[in-house]
């Protein structure tokens, strides 16, 4: 990981089109200004991680639901692995 020390008003450039500037410091907080192309989504880390966790949980729940359906189809007479979606 790259660690840099910057003062208020100084910036870091990431690639050719992302610029992160330290706007202000105080009370244990740092305000940063981010300039980035519109197609690059910028989020607070904990907000993004909350959605990533929700997506992983949804995928895991969908997987177990899918397994339930396979079991049902197998019980309907189709051999496991041979069932196909209509």
């Amino acid at each position, binding site marked *: 990981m790259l660690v840099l020390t910057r003062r208020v008003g100084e910036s870091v450039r990431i690639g050719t089109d992302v610029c992160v500037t330290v706007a202000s410091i105080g009370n244990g907080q740092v305000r940063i200004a981010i300039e980035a192309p*519109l*197609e690059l*989504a910028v*989020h*607070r880390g904990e*907000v*993004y*991680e*909350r*959605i*990533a*966790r*929700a*997506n*992983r*949980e*949804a*995928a895991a*729940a*969908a*997987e177990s*639901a*899918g*397994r339930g*359906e*396979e079991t049902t189809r197998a019980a309907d007479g189709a051999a496991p*692995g041979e*069932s*196909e*979606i*209509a």
Partner: protein
Amino acid sequence: MGEPVRIESRRFGSIALDEKDLIVFAGGLPGFPHARRFALVAHDRGTDFAWLVSADQPELAFVVTDPWRFFAAYQPEVPGHVLRALGVACAEELEWFVIATAGPARTTLNLAAPLLVNATTRRALQLILDCDTYSTREAIVAPASEPQSGAARP
């Protein structure tokens, strides 16, 4: 005309569709950065729910639904830069889905991060709403495993 695409999934069998019908999340999804192309597959039981099956990771799928089937007042704000990134003029031009999580006791919808799809180009993204108005696990009354009456939103 697009190229034919075939998704071979143990769970869904073989799904054949045209590449232009794939929904493309160019930036991936939070938690699944490499899953970019998805097929929308109707749910087995003819409910309000559909499967969003990954063409890049065939064992990855989400259960999705129309948020307004369950929350008529749902009205999140879509920032202008998101509309521009998707190539539309207003939010009404987009197709909306939310991801459902079916648990043993209840089914919840992630209203805090809807999936927005440009219906024409199939370009899509998951909008992360940076506010506390909507929950990632809003419970709905009807469980996902029970068929619902009424047609899905066109």
